[in-house]
């Protein structure tokens, strides 16, 4: 019997029980502890960037077990075990993914009652999991279903809505899956989907072919897992005090590298899971090397989480991310690249219904912390930017169509539009970016560009010469103000990018020279930390040092806010962002305002603005965002719409939990690299579209419409401007009468005074 079949068999009972509960049969149902009601393989964890040597994807096996819970009736235990652990036949890991009812579990086992054991691993019998390998392309989707294993099942026909967990019912699951299932073979689902996102899902592909089996005796035990296991299986514990008192609070710090044995006399103890950011502790046990820490076994009681959120990333709403948030704002993001999230969603909805109906009988004051929400990638069509799906990624043929025979860009506006919506194919970024960054004029011919490059290279070398021929005094000052920091920063910038990896990498040296030369070229700005983050991707795409330098010059000019030496520029950005939030997301704005000045400083988004989201999204997505901003399509402030989009998509917790300033920083900081860039971009485009539909805007946002030109129209876009009040140092609203509108009488309603009613700003979210 296959493992999958076995799991399903076991699951069916649990789901029946779940239904029973939901059906309102009252009382506490006989919940079978440990019943697996959902499982899915190749659910990925992505380690944060910057950890070298780690693949981008760490696939693992996820399952949900049901467990009795006094308060909730039934709670769900979520466990995720990395494939690497399974391949190592790690008992502790396997224990989490073996159903409680599995015969292998009943078998006596020395030491640990739950350790799966089986007889002869190489002679599978119906009562034990077949030692079938888990091919890497294969996706097993096992969803609880009733015991008769019908294809379309409503667990209890009379209240079908309550449990419709039939795996074959919808989504991308082909009918053949049902056949597979009946034959008891591991069902293979979506094997082609694996590559669809253009990511290579599994770095350690080759190794995964190895078969694994739930064998008891042949298991090679790594002694360290023994001790790990306590950390894994101890209940996820949230109270600092009880955690502090908990046994075995084997200090993560003291254990790591045996650093501080001397401190034991101070009773230095670091309790489990109560530091807000003890991610590693939260995610898994502490020992071992980095991947083990970041991508180790993860196991929590979902009934004690603060929120569960599902972010669907595909149109069909089967793939995406599950974000689990603890009550202390720690996050775990599990990526479903190959579908199955829709089924999980159903399980959650079912469970939520069960627990809620159960809770009705309980004391009302006791409440579960779990909030559950679902984000689908589709924005209602009335919201989406109408041009949303008209553009594909700009690839070579498409790019060539934008050029005439002389190599001039025929219509820059069209090119910008295409890039804004579709992005640029990686292969031609280095060629197209110089246009967006205004190094090349779009009117230039190929020949002219070549001439320009030659001339600019000469200029670049002159700048470099200037740097190298400083007087000793100048050089000392330069070293102190610029070079010292540049030297420290270049080696720690984008280290995870192949292009900059390794010691004495010449590309790092190029990056260093560009930054130093820039500081000579523009001494007013000099070097600000973060500039290395901005120049690194340019260099990696454009490659040529001189060209990169001039692109960087363009970047600095066009996005002065990014590395501005002046506070005013940042202040201006924040002011616009606050106003935009007030307009589009008033609840969030009110929350900030309630926090006072500190809240309105919006510390959580400073890095977003300063680095243009570089550290908030994986590089591929971050660069898409850069391109969309650089396109200057319909606004020069698209980055602010991105900010609002992030808040709109990921900010609900902030409002619901009334997070304070520092907590907000933590909240969004933890989400870095775990947000869905495409979804954010779509949302931002939608926000821009809606913004431009507004008949009136507050004068504080006047600038947002001003600079980016008329596009293909004869006239610029400028809605009526309404004074929002507050113009210290000037009589009346400076924008009321100064709206630049080339064509017919600008309808304007300025000077309404500070008490302008807000109802004109209807904004759909």
């Amino acid at each position, binding site marked *: 019997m296959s493992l999958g079949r076995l799991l399903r068999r076991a699951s069916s009972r649990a789901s029946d029980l779940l239904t029973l509960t939901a059906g309102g049969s009252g009382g506490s149902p006989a919940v079978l502890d440990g019943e697996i009601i959902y499982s899915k393989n190749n659910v990925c964890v992505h380690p944060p960037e*910057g*950890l070298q040597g780690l693949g981008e994807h760490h696939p693992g096996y996820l399952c949900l077990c049901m*467990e009795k819970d006094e308060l909730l009736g039934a709670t769900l*235990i979520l466990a995720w075990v990395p494939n690497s652990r399974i391949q190592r036949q790690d008992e502790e890991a396997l224990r989490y993914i073996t159903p409680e009812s599995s015969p292998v579990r009943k078998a006596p086992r020395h030491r640990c009652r*739950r350790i799966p054991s089986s007889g002869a691993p190489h002679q599978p019998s119906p009562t034990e999991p077949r030692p079938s390998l888990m091919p890497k392309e294969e996706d097993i989707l096992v969803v609880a279903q009733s015991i008769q294993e019908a294809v379309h099942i409503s667990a209890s026909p009379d209240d079908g809505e309550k449990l419709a967990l039939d795996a074959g019912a919808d989504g991308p699951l082909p009918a053949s899956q049902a056949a597979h299932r009946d034959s008891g073979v591991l069902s293979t689902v979506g094997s082609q989907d694996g590559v669809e996102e253009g990511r290579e899902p599994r770095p350690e592909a080759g190794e995964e072919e190895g078969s694994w089996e739930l064998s008891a005796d042949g298991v090679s035990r790594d002694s360290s897992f023994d001790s790990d296991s306590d950390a894994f299986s*101890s*209940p996820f*514990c949230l*109270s*600092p*005090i*009880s955690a502090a008192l908990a046994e075995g609070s084997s200090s*993560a*710090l*003291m254990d*790591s*590298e045996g*650093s*501080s044995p*001397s401190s034991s006399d*101070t009773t230095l103890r*670091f*309790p489990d899971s*109560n*530091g*807000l*950011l003890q991610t590693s502790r939260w995610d898994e046990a*502490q020992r071992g090397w980095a991947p083990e820490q970041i991508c180790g076994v993860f196991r929590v*009681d979902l009934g004690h989480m603060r929120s569960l959120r599902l972010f669907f990333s595909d149109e069909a709403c089967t793939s995406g991310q599950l974000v689990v948030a*603890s*009550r202390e704002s720690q996050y775990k993001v599990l990526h479903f690249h190959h579908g199955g999230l829709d089924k999980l969603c159903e399980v959650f909805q079912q469970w939520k219904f069960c627990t809620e109906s159960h809770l009705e009988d309980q004391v009302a004051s006791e409440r579960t912390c779990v909030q559950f929400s679902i984000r689908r990638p589709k924005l209602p069509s009335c919201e989406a930017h109408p041009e949303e799906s008209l553009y594909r990624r700009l690839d070579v043929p498409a790019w060539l169509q934008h050029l005439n025979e002389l190599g001039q860009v025929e219509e820059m506006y069209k090119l910008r539009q295409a890039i804004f919506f579709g992005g640029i194919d990686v292969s031609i970024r280095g060629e197209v970016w110089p246009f967006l960054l205004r190094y090349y004029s779009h009117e230039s011919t190929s020949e002219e560009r070549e001439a320009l490059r030659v001339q600019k290279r000469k200029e670049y070398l002159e700048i470099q010469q200037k740097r190298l021929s400083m007087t000793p005094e100048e*050089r*000392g000052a330069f*070293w*102190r103000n610029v070079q010292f*920091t540049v030297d420290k*920063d270049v080696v720690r*910038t984008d280290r995870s990018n192949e292009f900059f990896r390794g010691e004495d990498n010449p590309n790092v040296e190029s990056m260093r020279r560009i930054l130093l030369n820039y500081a000579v070229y523009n001494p007013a700005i000099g070097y*600000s*930390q973060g500039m290395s*983050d901005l120049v690194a991707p340019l260099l990696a795409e454009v490659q040529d040092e001189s060209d990169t330098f001039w692109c960087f010059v363009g970047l600095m000019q066009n996005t002065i806010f990014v590395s*501005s030496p002046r*506070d005013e520029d*940042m202040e201006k950005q924040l002011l616009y962002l606050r106003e935009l939030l007030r307009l589009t997301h008033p609840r969030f704005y009110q929350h900030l305002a309630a926090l006072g*000045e500190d809240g*309105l*400083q919006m*510390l959580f988004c*400073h*890095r977003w603005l*300063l*680095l243009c989201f570089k550290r908030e999204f994986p590089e591929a997505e971050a660069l898409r965002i850069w391109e969309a901003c650089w396109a200057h399509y319909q606004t020069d402030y698209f980055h602010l719409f991105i900010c609002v989009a992030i808040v709109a998509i990921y900010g609900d917790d902030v409002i619901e*939990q*009334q997070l*304070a300033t*520092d*907590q907000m*920083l*933590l909240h969004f*900081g933890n989400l870095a690299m775990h947000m869905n860039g495409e979804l954010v971009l779509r949302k931002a485009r939608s926000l821009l579209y809606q913004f431009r539909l507004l008949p009136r805007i507050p004068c504080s946002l006047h600038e947002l419409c001003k600079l980016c030109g008329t596009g293909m129209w004869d006239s610029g876009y400028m809605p009526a401007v309404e004074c929002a009040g507050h113009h210290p140092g000037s009589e009346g609203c400076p924008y009321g009468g100064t709206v630049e509108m080339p064509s017919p009488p600008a309808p304007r309603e300025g000077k309404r005074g500070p008490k302008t009613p807000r109802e004109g700003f209807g904004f759909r979210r």
Partner: protein
Amino acid sequence: MAGRGGAARPNGPAAGNKICQFKLVLLGESAVGKSSLVLRFVKGQFHEYQESTIGAAFLTQTVCLDDTTVKFEIWDTAGQERYHSLAPMYYRGAQAAIVVYDITNTDTFARAKNWVKELQRQASPNIVIALAGNKADLASKRAVEFQPLPHFLSILFLASVGNQEAQAYADDNSLLFMETSAKTAMNVNEIFMAIAKKLPKNEPQNAAGAPGGTRGVNLQESNPASRSQCCSN
């Protein structure tokens, strides 16, 4: 071996255990190892190529000190602060600060002294300040020149900071002082523990009934001294 959830859930505070919550800020020149110290303290990790901090980061760590649970709310700041008007916001209301320098580089020590001065002038009057001479694993390079440099620079730079010199400065200014190494973990926990010991723990704070729930300003805010520094709006 612990059971699988279910039975064993947190049971709330035990009697007699106090909880204290303190805001701590890290300040110092860029690339002296502020983030690395925090990362070592909070996660027990060290990254050779820790990326530069842009803006600020916020982390927490809880330690037990005798019968008291001390929760540090740690603000890790950017060494090269581009958005200057914010600096006071980081240390405003902080009960503790760690000012970090790099023992192989005197300039970072000078910068540290400036931070100490600013804190003494503008932060809460009772703030506990610790001085951390980081990169102590490079102590062997303290005496020798640590990087080949044109000789005109060696006068300005990389004359390293002597332990005694820093200790004397710390004594004069009533600072805690330790040489630390985020890389080897030397004195990292110790400096935080020393701060924890020195902080006043009189009034029991915020019984941790709802961690992560609504929590206003710091409970023990002694004096928001530098509010006037805030940017205009």
